[in-house]
C-alpha cells in the first residue's frame, strides 16, 4: 500500500462526551483507498461511537474530519452520504416492514418523471445488485422482517454499495451470521477492496478482522492504543493491545497506550 497518497478519510483528534463521560478522547484514525482497516477494542471502547461520528449519526465535540485531504463538515447522515461514506450498522438499520427494494433505496428513491415512486425500476435494480451479492436471494416482495439474518445483512450491504460508496463502514458485520454467511461477507469485502473502496471493519472479536484487514487500530477507554499493519504483528500482540493496552514494538502507539495510562 502506498501510504504517501492522500488518505480517503482522516479523523483527527476527535472527542465526544455523553453526560460527562468521554466516550471518545482525542482519537485519530485514517483510511486509504483499497484498504481494509480493522477497528478493534472491547465493548465500550468507543469504536462504534467514533465511527458513528464519521457516518453522521453523532456530532463530534471537537476534532476534524478530512475526506480526500479536504476538510469535511458532517453533521448528519445525509452529509456523510454526500461524501460517499456508507455505513452498515450493527443493528442492521433496515425498516422491517417494507421490502428489500424499498430498503435499498430508502432516502434516495428513484422517481418517475411525474415525481412518483418508480417501484418497478427500483425492484429491477435491486434484483440486479442482490443477484451479484447473494444469487440465492429471491424474496423481493416480502417485508425484510421475514428474512433470515444473512439475507438481511445482504440487503444492508447491497444498500451501501448500490450508491457507489467510496468509504464503507461495517459495524460488526458478521455478528448475526452463521459460518457460511460470514465467509460470504469475507469474499464480498475482498471484492469491494479490489474496486478501490476503503473499508472500516469494526469488531470486538479479533478473529473476525485479522485475516481481512490490512491494518488494525485498537481502542481502549475511548483512546487509541495504537495502529499496526497486520503483516507486522501477531494476533496475540493485537490481543495484548486490546486487553492490556500494551503496544508491541512494530506498532505506532497512540494516546491510550500503556505508558500513557500508567502516567495518567
Amino acid at each position: 500500500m502506498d501510504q504517501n497518497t492522500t488518505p480517503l478519510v482522516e479523523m483527527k483528534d476527535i472527542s465526544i462526551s455523553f453526560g460527562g463521560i468521554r466516550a471518545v478522547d482525542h482519537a485519530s484514525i485514517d483510511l486509504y483507498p483499497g484498504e481494509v482497516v480493522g477497528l478493534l477494542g472491547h465493548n465500550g471502547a468507543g469504536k462504534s461511537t467514533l465511527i458513528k461520528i464519521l457516518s453522521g449519526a453523532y456530532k463530534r465535540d471537537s476534532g476534524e474530519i478530512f475526506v480526500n485531504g479536504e476538510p469535511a463538515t458532517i453533521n448528519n447522515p445525509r452529509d456523510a452520504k454526500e461524501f460517499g461514506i456508507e455505513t452498515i450498522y450493527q443493528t442492521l438499520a433496515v425498516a422491517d416492514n417494507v421490502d428489500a427494494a424499498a430498503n435499498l433505496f430508502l432516502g434516495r428513491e428513484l422517481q418517475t418523471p411525474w415525481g412518483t415512486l418508480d417501484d418497478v425500476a427500483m425492484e429491477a435494480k435491486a434484483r440486479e445488485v442482490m443477484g451479484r451479492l447473494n444469487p440465492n436471494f429471491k424474496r423481493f416482495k416480502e417485508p425484510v422482517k421475514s428474512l433470515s439474518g444473512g439475507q438481511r445483512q445482504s440487503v444492508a450491504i447491497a444498500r451501501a454499495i448500490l450508491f457507489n460508496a467510496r468509504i464503507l463502514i461495517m459495524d460488526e458485520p458478521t455478528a448475526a451470521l452463521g459460518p457460511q454467511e460470514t465467509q460470504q461477507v469475507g469474499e464480498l469485502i475482498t471484492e469491494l477492496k479490489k474496486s478501490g473502496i476503503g473499508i472500516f471493519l469494526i469488531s470486538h472479536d479479533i478473529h473476525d478482522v485479522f485475516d481481512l484487514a490490512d491494518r488494525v487500530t485498537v481502542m481502549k477507554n475511548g483512546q487509541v492504543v495504537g495502529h499496526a499493519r497486520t503483516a507486522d504483528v501477531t494476533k496475540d500482540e493485537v490481543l495484548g493491545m486490546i486487553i492490556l493496552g500494551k503496544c508491541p514494538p512494530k506498532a505506532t502507539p497512540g494516546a491510550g497506550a500503556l505508558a500513557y495510562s500508567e502516567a495518567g
Partner: protein
Amino acid sequence: MTDEVTAPTALQRNPSKGGLLDRFFQATELDTRMLGMIGALLLIWIGFDVFSNGLFLTPRNLWNLSVQSASIAVMATGMVLIIVSRNIDLSVGSILGFVGMMMATVQTELLPSLIGFDHPLTWAIALLAGIGIGVMIGGFHGLIISFMGVPAFIVTLGGLLVWRGAAWWVTSGRTVAPMDSTFRLMGGGVEGSIGATASWAVGIIACLCLVLILVHSRRQRKRFLFPLRPLWAEFLLALLGCFLILGAVYIANSYPWPRAIANRYAEANGIPIPEGGLFIAHGLAIPVLIAILVGVFMTFVATRTRFGRYVFAIGGNPEAAELAGIKTRWVKVKIFALMGGLCAVAAAISSARLNAATNALGTLDELYVIAAAVIGGSSLAGGAGTIAGAMLGAVVMQSLQSGMVLMGIDTPLQNIVVGIVLVFAVWLDTLYRSRAK
C-alpha cells in the same frame, strides 16, 4: 399462461403448494386480510338484515349508510398515516368542530358582506379557508410533537380540549345556520346526489380506470421480466372489480327521491306524474364521491410517493429511517398537517349534511376514526396499515351503528356493542398477524 413460460426460470413463481384455495390466492395476489374484512362486513349486513326483518339491505339504507360513513372515512385515511408512523391524533373531532364552525362563519357572516349572498364561489372560498385552517392546526401540532418533543398523545389530547373550546369561542356557542346552498351539496341529500345518468358514467369511468391500471401494471411487470399473474386471474380481478363498482352504482340508482319532492320537481318542470309516482333516482351522493376521491388520493400518497414511503419506513424503524437520511421530523409535521386538512374536508361534509355548524359537531369522532383505522388493520405498533382498510373500517363502524338503530337498540347498549366489537376485531387481527409470521 404463455407469459410465464417465456419468463426466465429464475424469476418464475414458486411452484404452487397446498390446495386449490391457496393457489387461487397466490395467483390473484388478493389480500386475504382484506377479504376477511369484507366477509365480516357482509356477515354484519346479512345479520342485521335478518334481525331487522329486511330493513337493512335496502337501497335506501345502504345509500344512507354510505353518506353517514363519508366523514369518518375521510378522516380515517389520514389517521392511517398517523398510526403507521407510531403516533396518535386525539384531536380530529375537535379540529372538525372548530374548522366546521369557521367555515360556517366565513360563508354566513363574512362572505355575504364581501361578495354577496349565495355567490357561486362562496362554497369554494369557505372550503379552501377551512382546509387552510385545518392544515395550519395540524401542522402546528406536528411542529410541537417533532421539534419540542412532546408526545403526540399529549399534544393532541390538549388539542382535543383547545379546539373544542375554540369552536365555542368563535360564535360564543351559537349554532350557525343555514349554510350556503352550493356548500350544502357536499352533505348529500336529494340535491347533493348526482342522479342516475351521471352515476352510471362515474361507474363506467371507474371500471375503465381499473382495467387500465391492471393492464399497465402487467406491462410494467413484463418489461422488467417480473413474475406475472396468470391471465385468468387478471380477467377475474377485472370482472370482480367492475361487478362491485357497477353493483354499487345500481344500488344508489335504485333509491328514488321521496314522493313529495319528486312530485314537486315534476310540477315545477311540467313533467306528467305517472301512476304510482315518479321515479327519480338519487344516484351516488356527493359526499361519498368526495370520500372515494380522498381515498384514491391518499392511497396514491401512501404507496406511490416518497412521503408515503417515508411514513411507513419511520413506522417500521424510526432509527433506520433517520440513519438513511430521511428528515423524519418534517415528515411527521407533514403527516399531522395532512390530517388537519382532511379534518376540514370531513367538517365540510358533516356541517353541510347537518346544514349547520354546532358546538357538538364532531364530538367523539376521534374515537370512531381511530377505531375505523384500527379495525381496518392499522397496527398501533406502527409500520402497518392500508387506506382502503381504514375506509372499510369506517363502513363497518357505521354499519354497526345504523343497524342497531334499525333494530331499535338503546343508545347505551349501542356503545357497549361498538366497544366490544372494537376490542374483538383487534384481537382477531392480532391472532391473524401472529399466525402469518
